[in-house]
């Protein structure tokens, strides 16, 4: 416990409030030898149940490191693969997926995320499992004009899409069902390209 707090203080000493701030996180990442935009950092945040993007509180820090039984940087580094496995378990991944979206809602009462951020997020969160879907969808998001932001419903809809719809033929997709409209439009766009 002591050592965990001690580790926390090491990264939190730069900020005026008793938090690990974005700079601190950057240092943490380099110590862990993990890129700043790596999905494992997001997973760590999930494990912490971190509320604010870019910041870790002591309580959150303790929560994760205790659960991962890590009180040094090297132990934390070694625990990362295990963490990833844990997150990718189907029972956890849905929760993680939702968390990832919420984590990016930085303003109070914010409900949607801009397209640019979404594209990055999709890449990080789903890129390794659904590479093709993510790439095509990101392409589409960039060229379409109907939506400037994505909401939770659409975010979730895409995850279901990846899981349920065969790709790229999408033969089992039916736009007359309850899919979010943006996916109907994506489907149309894909069909036009394939023709």
């Amino acid at each position, binding site marked *: 416990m002591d050592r965990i707090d001690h580790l926390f203080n090491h990264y939190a000493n730069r900020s005026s409030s008793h938090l690990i701030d974005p700079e601190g996180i950057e240092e943490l990442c380099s110590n862990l030898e993990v890129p700043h935009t790596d999905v494992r950092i997001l997973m760590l945040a999930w494990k912490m149940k971190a509320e604010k993007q870019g910041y870790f509180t002591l309580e959150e820090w303790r929560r994760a490191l205790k659960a991962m039984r890590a009180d040094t940087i090297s132990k934390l580094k070694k625990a990362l693969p295990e963490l990833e496995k844990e997150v990718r378990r189907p029972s956890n991944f849905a929760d993680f997926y939702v968390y990832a979206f919420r984590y990016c809602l930085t303003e109070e009462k914010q409900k*949607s995320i801009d397209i640019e951020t979404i594209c990055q997020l999709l890449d990080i969160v789903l890129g390794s499992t659904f590479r093709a879907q993510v790439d095509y969808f990101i392409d589409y998001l960039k060229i379409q004009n109907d939506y400037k932001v994505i909401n939770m*419903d659409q975010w979730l809809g895409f995850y279901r899409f990846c899981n349920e719809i065969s790709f790229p033929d999408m033969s089992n997709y039916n736009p*007359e*069902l*309850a899919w979010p*409209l943006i996916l*109907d439009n994506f489907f149309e766009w894909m069909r036009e390209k394939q023709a």
Partner: protein
Amino acid sequence: MSNQRKRNFQIEAFKQRVVVDPKYADKTWKILEHAIHEIYNHNASGLSFEELYRNAYNMVLHKFGEKLYTGLVTTMTFHLKEICKSIEEAQGGAFLELLNRKWNDHNKALQMIRDILMYMDRTYVPSLKKTHVHELGLHLWRDSVLHSSKVQTRLLDTLLDLVHKERTGEVIDRVLMRNVIKMFMDLGESVYQEDFEKPFLEASAEFYKVESQGFIESCDCGDYLKKAEKPLTEEVERVAHYLDAKSEAKITSVVEREMIANHVQRLVHMENSGLVNMLLNDKYEDMGRMYSLFRRVSNGLVTVRDVMTLHLREMGKQLVTDPEKSKDPVEFVQRLLDERDKYDKIINLAFSNDKTFQNALNSSFEYFLNLNTRSPEFISLFVDDKLRKGLKGVGEEDVDLILDKVMMLFRYLQEKDVFEKYYKQHLAKRLLSGKTVSDDAERNLIVKLKTECGYQFTSKLEGMFTDMKTSHDTLLGFYNSHPELSEGPTLVVQVLTTGSWPTQPTVQCNLPAEVSVLCEKFRSYYLGTHTGRRLSWQTNMGTADIKAVFGKSQRHELNVSTFQMCVLMLFNNSDRLSYKEIEQATEIPASDLKRCLQSMACVKGKNVLRKEPMSKDIGEEDSFIVNDRFTSKFYKVKIGTVVAQKETEPEKQETRQRVEEDRKPQIEAAIVRIMKSRRVLDHNNIIAEVIKQLQSRFLANPTEIKKRIESLIERDFLERDSTDRKLYRYLA
């Protein structure tokens, strides 16, 4: 009687003593046999009925019933064979007559024989389950005469031949026919059917097949139908005269099949004379005939109706998508009304007001009317035209009739909310320019719309009428309380409640001093009696009547728009004004100002101003002077119209956009209503319910509905079910 021998008298029951004479039976039978012969030889008069009866009786009593019965069979058969031979030998026409005669003879003989043998018929026959005498006689005739090979075929051929002759116009002996055919019927229904009716029906089918083929190749549709009617009545009459009544239905269906059913397609589609031709040329009689004939056969009327529907839809589609026809909206609608009247008449006069045809007419109109997205606008323009001048001098009942017809078209519209928008605009213009021909007619139509669409549809429209009336009263009050103003210019104000009237952007302009003073007085008067309200002058909607003098003495009264008035009044103080000066003084927005100046300087007959340079368009460097050489035949000259016109393309786009915007909250309201009561509902059902709820106003688009659902989800009115993606849940 003498009592010679003394004997004890005993009264006993009558008992016939058995006579043991072995030849008794033979002897008695011989007597009877002889009698039968005599009967068949027409010599019955010499016989004693009583004696014969008793002989037969005795035979049966003494248990010789069988001998009697078999003897009867043998004897009768013998005679019948004789008869049969004689019939076979008959020549030509005599065949049938002889057959008939012999049949009658046989029946008479049979009657007599049965009377004689009644005791046997009543006792021996039933107990041994033999055939009764009468029936036996019929069976024997059937077997010995009718079914003898020579007679059977010849008889049938003869009969069918006679029928054929009669069908081709010859006269035949109907009485003889009836009697002979009755013979079949008497011999039993199966004999009638097998021996006569079936072959008769087959031969008839052949005959009419050939007939109809001949007709159809040589006649046009109308003539053919006339020709097809005849056999139907003919055959019914034939049956009545000499066939069994039960054959009527059968022969009728044969004729219907051969003459009608087999040719339905060919007749309906016949070039230049088929149904389409009849429809185009209002051939009521022919169509009526077609209807009454085709309704007899299955799919007859369906075919007629389908062809009519197809034709209607094609014609309607051409009508509404023809750009030429869309140039004049009033013509467009009138043409549609005329077509509807035409078909109404056809269905009435020729198709017996058949409801299925009415429905086909309605569905066709609904189909093509909605192919043209401008139909709602055009119908409103048509109504506008009628209410402005078209109904002038028309009696009340006729007005009602025309409005009812308009309502009929209205009902077909899918986008009723678009109609509402245009109707409101046009009504506003009519009311404000005072150009409505009849207040009653206007109200009449509102009532009809209310009945059709409910209170909400018309509440705002009624509000407009109320405003007009209230304004009138307010104005009276104003002038009553300001008697000093009766000397100056007369102000007429209509106070419009914002929500009821079509939204207009308020445009500013500087009113001439005399006018603005009056306006201010009115404003204070009004606000004095109505606190808490705000008035804004709609200078872009008003009109003015100005007296003007051109040159020395040309006097005219000009009817102009408010903007035009502002411009013209400036010339009371200056002879010449530049565009910029006018713009500055009036502060009228550029595009409105240009249009206003154009209508006063560049239009022939209305050029009260002269422009320099003399070009078609208004340029910002132009200058204007009063046209002293202005002339007009009329004292009162109207410049600038506020008449409803068909919208330009950009205006149309704008209206359409506003309609789409208005629909969004309606869709959302419907979704919320539905979800509030159902709590949980799946996607397809929501879509269907929403469309149903809104269909009296417009046809809701599933994609649009989906958008609204997503918007509602975002605003936390609804959520998706976490396990079943297809379900939506209402969030209280």
